[in-house]
């Protein structure tokens, strides 16, 4: 069985800081270092008198903030029985409920241990409602005026904070002690001989290294040479393990369980798995805490990011977990365990949401914002179906998502997130454009500093041909999102400028696209993946509108007359003259070329006809419209070079969703 990370030093330092009167301690360290373990141990070894501490874990799911607040509140029912009613009151928003919880925390001076990522600052306009809930929850706890210990991967920067770093070389020996490795002790021992090289490895990475080194044809040396870290170790491990696919899916299903898994539940969830798989899980991939099993967050994150489960598999797993949570919720209710009932109810709602259970919309939930989560899940599933060509089913889910957001708005008309997604889903459905426009406007009014509202509204305006309104909305978006003219985070330019320019170019509005692209500061342009492509396309479209499109976008403007481009460099010296052209029209009688020549006053454009006979002589009988050609004159006579048809598309500038023709008759 896997040991908890050795965190005695960090635990000791934290206790010492608290005993010395610190009211805010930041426990930080890399992924898998044992920060969560410090907090778990701290609950058992709390050094101060007064109320015992409350441990709050904020996960990575969309409802993490809601469930975090619910979990925190449930542990305060003993101090304030009215809190249960307040938390379940749907007419109160998340912010209202947080205020009430913070009030109890401050009044009763209940210490809180928060296991959460540190809220990031500086990218306000990119924050979603969910990330803001997480941020506000952590902020609320920190501001409650009680003692707080916060575990996160980066240190908390705040006045008066005591910082404790969780790093220790000693954990290598502790984790690799051969006695802990039933059957793999020899490999662990060999790795231990290189303890010095493994100091920066987290306990979880060490465990993965042991398992990987034990695979046939691998060995300790190869693992050490590779320098692989967590995600690479996992990838390689799953490539090597004979039952890796089954193990991966089982692990991913376990990772969906957010509460510690009791032995009984663990047996139920791993029913059907072979003994080897179970052994690998228990020995390397899971860890135990207070007799319960847990999947490390780092592994859970990998499972999410790399979609170890298909959407159908995930839906099925969530359905099963929802049923199990419902049983536990009923049991807690029967036992009048209000705190347990609230926690399991939140888990039930979470799993039903993730299962895409639309019947949730008929139920009274705990947080009004849970309807937002439900809408998001239904919307995502709908989009996935639409992308797979299942239009009817996809649209049905988008309509359910609309219902979810409308339900959220009946309780809280200021729910900007619901307002935004109501607009977006109506937009994606190609519903009444008046409604779409009104909802986008209201979403912007509710939260003017949300980049997606502006970006999607601007794209809606372009798509529906409202170009005057677009100009006004662009000025407004810049005023709200870039009040100082520049964004701190280049991602704002991706989400706003590049996305909007892409839609403008799709609808052949290069002048407006240029207006948008020129707004990106020169220093930021190289950081944007699509910028160069979009700028080139804008230029080419402007040329096409003036009937001056000759050169392909792949030839930079400054390089255009350094041709011929279709001839290898070593053959260029033999060329006496050359001129570029583009096939404007191809018919049985020949082709009509748009040609260009360089003059002192700049390029001049003309038309050239090449008869079918001339084309045959030039061995170019099958020229297609749009082909870029170069006619070069050499010793042996003229030659026509053609750019081979690529069948290529500007994939990056073709909007995939919502369908660009959704409003067309």
């Amino acid at each position, binding site marked *: 069985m896997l040991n908890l990370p050795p965190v005695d030093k960090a635990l000791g330092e934290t206790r010492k800081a608290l005993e010395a009167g610190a009211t805010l301690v930041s426990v930080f360290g890399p992924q898998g270092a044992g920060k969560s373990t410090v907090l778990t141990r701290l609950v058992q070894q709390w050094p101060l008198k007064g109320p015992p501490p409350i441990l709050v874990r904020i996960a990575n799911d969309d409802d993490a903030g809601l469930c975090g607040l619910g979990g925190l509140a449930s542990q305060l029912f003993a101090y304030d029985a009215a809190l249960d009613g307040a938390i379940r009151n749907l007419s109160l928003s998340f912010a209202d409920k947080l205020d009430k919880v913070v009030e109890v925390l401050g009044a009763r001076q209940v210490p809180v241990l928060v296991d959460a990522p540190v809220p990031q600052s500086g990218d306000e306009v990119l924050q979603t409602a969910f990330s803001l809930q997480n941020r506000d929850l952590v902020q609320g706890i920190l501001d409650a005026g009680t003692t707080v210990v916060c575990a996160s991967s980066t240190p908390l920067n705040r006045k008066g904070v005591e910082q404790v770093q969780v790093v220790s070389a000693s954990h290598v020996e502790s984790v690799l002690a051969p006695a802990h490795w039933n059957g793999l002790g020899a490999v662990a021992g060999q790795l231990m001989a290189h303890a010095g090289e493994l100091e920066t490895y987290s306990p979880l990475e060490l465990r993965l290294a042991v398992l990987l080194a034990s695979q046939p044809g691998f060995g300790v040396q190869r693992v050490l040479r590779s320098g692989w870290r967590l995600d690479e170790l996992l990838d390689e491990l799953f490539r090597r393990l004979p039952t890796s696919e089954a193990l991966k899916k089982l692990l991913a299903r376990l990772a969906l369980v957010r509460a510690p898994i009791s032995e009984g539940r663990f047996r139920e969830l791993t029913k059907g798995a072979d003994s080897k798989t179970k052994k690998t899980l228990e020995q390397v991939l899971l860890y135990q805490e207070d007799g319960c099993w847990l999947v490390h967050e780092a592994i859970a994150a990998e499972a999410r990011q790399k979609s170890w489960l298909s959407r159908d598999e995930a839906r099925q797993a969530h359905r099963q977990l929802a049923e199990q949570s419902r049983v536990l919720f009923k049991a807690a209710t029967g036992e009048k365990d209000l705190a347990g009932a609230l926690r399991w109810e939140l888990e039930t709602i979470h799993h039903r949401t993730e299962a895409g259970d639309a019947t949730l919309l008929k139920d009274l939930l705990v947080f009004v914002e849970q309807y937002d989560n439900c809408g998001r899940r239904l919307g995502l599933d709908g989009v996935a179906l639409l992308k797979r060509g299942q239009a009817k089913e996809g649209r049905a889910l988008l309509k359910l998502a609309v219902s979810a957001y409308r339900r959220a708005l009946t309780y809280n008309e200021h729910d900007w997130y619901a307002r935004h997604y109501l607009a977006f889903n109506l937009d994606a459905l*190609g*519903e*009444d*454009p*008046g409604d779409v426009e009104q909802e986008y406007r209201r979403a912007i009014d509710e939260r003017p500093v949300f980049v997606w509202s502006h970006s999607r509204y601007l794209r809606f305006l*372009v*798509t*529906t*041909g*409202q*170009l*005057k*309104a677009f100009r006004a909305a662009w000025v407004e978006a810049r005023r709200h999102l870039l009040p100082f003219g520049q964004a701190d985070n280049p991602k704002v330019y991706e989400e706003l400028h590049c996305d909007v320019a892409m839609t403008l*170019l*799709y*609808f*052949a509005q*290069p*002048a407006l696209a240029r207006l948008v692209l020129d707004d990106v500061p020169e220093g930021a342009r190289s950081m944007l993946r699509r910028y160069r492509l979009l700028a080139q*396309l804008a230029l080419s*479209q*402007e040329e*096409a*509108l*003036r*009937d*001056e*499109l000759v050169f*392909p*976008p792949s030839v930079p403007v400054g390089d255009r007359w350094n041709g011929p481009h279709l001839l290898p460099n070593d053959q260029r010296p033999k060329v006496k003259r050359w001129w570029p052209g*583009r096939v*404007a*029209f191809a*018919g049985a009688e020949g082709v*009509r070329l*748009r040609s260009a020549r360089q003059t002192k006053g700049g390029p001049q*454009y*003309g*038309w*050239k*006809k090449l008869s079918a006979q001339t084309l045959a002589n030039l061995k170019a009988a099958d020229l*297609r*419209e*749009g082909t870029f050609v170069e006619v070069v004159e050499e010793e042996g006579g003229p030659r026509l070079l053609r750019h081979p*048809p*690529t*069948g*290529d*598309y*500007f*994939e990056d*500038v*073709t909007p995939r969703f919502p*369908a*660009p*023709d*959704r*409003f*067309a*008759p």
Partner: protein
Amino acid sequence: MKARFEHQPGRLQLWLFGPGTGELVVVHVPPAGWLVVDGCAPGGESWAVRFFEHMAARPALRIRPTHVLLSHPHLDHAAGVTELIDWCFSQGHAPRLAAVPRPSTRRVSRDDLAKSVAAGQALAALNAIGRWWKRRPTTKWPLRAGREVRLGGGRLWFLSPEQAVVHNAEKRARQHKPVSWNELASALLLRWGRTRVVLGSDLTDNGWPAALKRTPKGELQVLKVAHHGSRGAQSPQLLARFQPTAQFMCTPFAREDLPRFADAEGAHLLLQVVPQLHLTGLPHAHDQQANRPRRFARPALAADVDDFIADDGPRGFPDSWVKLCVDANGRRTFAHGPGSVIVTR
């Protein structure tokens, strides 16, 4: 010349713009009918918007589009239509809008960017029309062959496309097969008093027999020539309905070198019916049109029309236009803008 461009109340007037790429038809039928068919936007500027902004200088005349038609979602015909619709509604005008079905969803091709640009303009115009149909259903002008609508004191009929042709095109588009959008072009017949005008859009030859069945019997007087005078669009049955006293108006399409002037080509076929052809320009880019009206005999243009590229450049809006004016007695007069060309036999 400028005076002849201006609006003359009480007369049927037809302005035809064609700067080399794009075709814009504006028709006034007294007392208050204003029809716009398709568009052009040299340099990205909608000439339909320019036209109505220009006319708005005389607000008392209440000159505003009452009907807008995108005759087919093809290449140059959609340029500037989105801007016109946007302009109309931003001015508080709510014209009736008509369009043929949408093209299939496209991708932006690196190989033939010009076509991608044109398809983008067409889709934008269709979305703009679709938006207003949903938002204000009274703007919907159902486009069905044989349907008649009142336009000012005149009558307008859709001659094409046939429903079967539309359904077939939709099916092919859904299957991502090539669609000939010209077959879907909406040709129109306008009747005002004794004057009958055919606006041919880009309807090609195989669409004309059905279209002509819907055309009332009797002489036709004015033809906006179909598909830039291409040979394939000049239906003998249609041309047979015109007398030598009729007037033919045509726009060029530079990219496809239309109309062509050699023997047996489109211009030749047209000039076998009427003594002269009123062209808005030659098949050149806008900046290669002349800054004055010109006149050529067809044989002179037959060898190579590119020999007649002008080096004085266009004047800017309004240029590349011809205008037909019909008074209450049916008397027809023409005006020719800079860049336009009269081609004689």
